[in-house]
């Protein structure tokens, strides 16, 4: 008689970023008959999704959520989990510090593996967690010496399986128990992407996402510079969701510590910034087509004249002698300023936040 207990497929949570490695890792285990479900965490810093919606640039590309696309290709369920609030502590107080910018990659991975293991989807837990990590792939989090740290500090221990580099690591519980066949796992290492691309080809995968610089804005030098500037200007290391969204949008220009401009670069960004008009002093050019500009901080009247000149500099009237700019306050009071657009030579390069 068939032993039902033995034959119940084990359940694995696969961290799905939307990139190739996590897709391959899930596929390798899925093909061994394991019941795999995808988990995608939305931290607020994800490159995925938001900027596609905000900016018009690149609209020729299909506007898709790559994690959902991966789940569809694999035929697995995907749970997208909002961790915006919880993630704040990871960003502000990373136990293991930051990478090249403000990316707390090691703490992030520990957090996500722990969350995946304890996700209570469908009122059932998971037997183990799958990640697409490859030893040597990332300088901060994917190293031989950090792999055991993630396993230990996430609480997953040997329930954490990295199918793409498993052969370079001691056998995990799923391998020892025969839930997965170690012989069908891989020993990838280093930054060379060719083995992953060859594996993708063998599975018939094409059109997969390969985001340059990873999937997180915190790895981006310019974005990290804007976040650090925000903390400096406010004198406190903190943020809310709108802060980190606004850092993704527009030119950020800080002529003085007590205020900065956020200048829309194109129609999509102007539309996005328009959603914040009631909360910020904002400028729009009247005599010429131009950007919507939000002012974050406490500008004086003289500051607003300077801000209007900068806004005019990015309008169609940049070479005109004078541009009319409306200044709107959150109270509803508006005033028109007539200003000379700022000359490129007057715009101090150091005012550009994030370089």
């Amino acid at each position: 008689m068939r032993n039902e207990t033995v034959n119940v497929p084990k359940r694995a949570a696969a961290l799905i970023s939307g990139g190739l490695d996590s897709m391959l890792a899930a596929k390798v285990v899925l093909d061994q008959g394991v019941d795999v479900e995808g988990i995608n965490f939305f931290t607020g810093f994800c490159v995925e999704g938001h900027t596609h919606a905000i900016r018009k640039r690149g609209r020729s590309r299909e506007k898709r959520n790559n994690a959902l696309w991966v789940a569809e290709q694999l035929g697995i369920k995907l749970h997208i989990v909002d961790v915006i609030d919880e993630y704040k502590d990871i960003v502000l107080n990373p136990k293991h510090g930051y990478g090249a910018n403000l990316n707390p990659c090691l703490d992030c991975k520990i957090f996500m593996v722990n969350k995946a293991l304890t996700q209570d989807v469908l009122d059932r837990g998971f037997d183990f967690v799958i990640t697409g990590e490859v030893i040597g792939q990332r300088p901060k989090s994917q190293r031989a010496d950090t792999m055991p740290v993630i396993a230990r500090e996430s609480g997953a221990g040997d329930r954490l399986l990295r199918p793409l580099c498993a052969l370079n690591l001691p056998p995990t519980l799923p391998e020892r128990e025969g839930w997965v066949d170690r012989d069908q796992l891989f020993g990838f290492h280093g930054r060379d992407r060719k083995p992953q691309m060859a594996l993708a080809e063998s599975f018939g995968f094409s059109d997969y996402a390969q985001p340059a610089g990873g999937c997180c804005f915190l790895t981006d030098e310019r974005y990290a510079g804007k976040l650090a500037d925000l903390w400096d200007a406010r004198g406190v290391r903190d943020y809310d969701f709108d802060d980190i969204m606004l850092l993704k949008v527009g030119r950020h220009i800080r002529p003085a510590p007590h205020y900065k401009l956020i200048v829309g670069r194109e129609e999509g960004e102007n539309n996005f910034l328009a959603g914040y008009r009631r909360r910020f002093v904002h400028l729009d050019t009247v005599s010429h087509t131009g950007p919507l500009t939000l002012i974050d901080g406490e500008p004086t009247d003289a500051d607003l004249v300077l801000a209007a000149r900068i806004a005019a500099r990015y309008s169609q009237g940049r070479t005109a002698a004078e541009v009319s700019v409306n200044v709107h306050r959150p109270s509803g009071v508006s005033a028109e300023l007539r200003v000379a657009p700022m000359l490129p030579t007057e715009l101090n390069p150091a005012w550009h936040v994030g370089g």
Partner: protein
Amino acid sequence: MKGSQKPHGAPTTRLDARGLLCPLPVIRTQDRVRMLKVGDVLEVVATDPGVLHDIPAWCRVHGHRLLVTEQRADDFRFHIEVA
């Protein structure tokens, strides 16, 4: 039709996801669907054009039936039947 019974396919409940950028409309939809029962119909209204791709993709991944997809002047409307 009996008293308070809804016609087949009529929304049982409504989610206002206007103003949210993807993937938040999908996350809110997913969280709401988790509280519903099989056969319930959820109406989702959202403004981010990304939902035109993400909501149908999410429904396909989870096997829910997308009954209505409507692009209106200011927003997008979906009816999702929970599977």
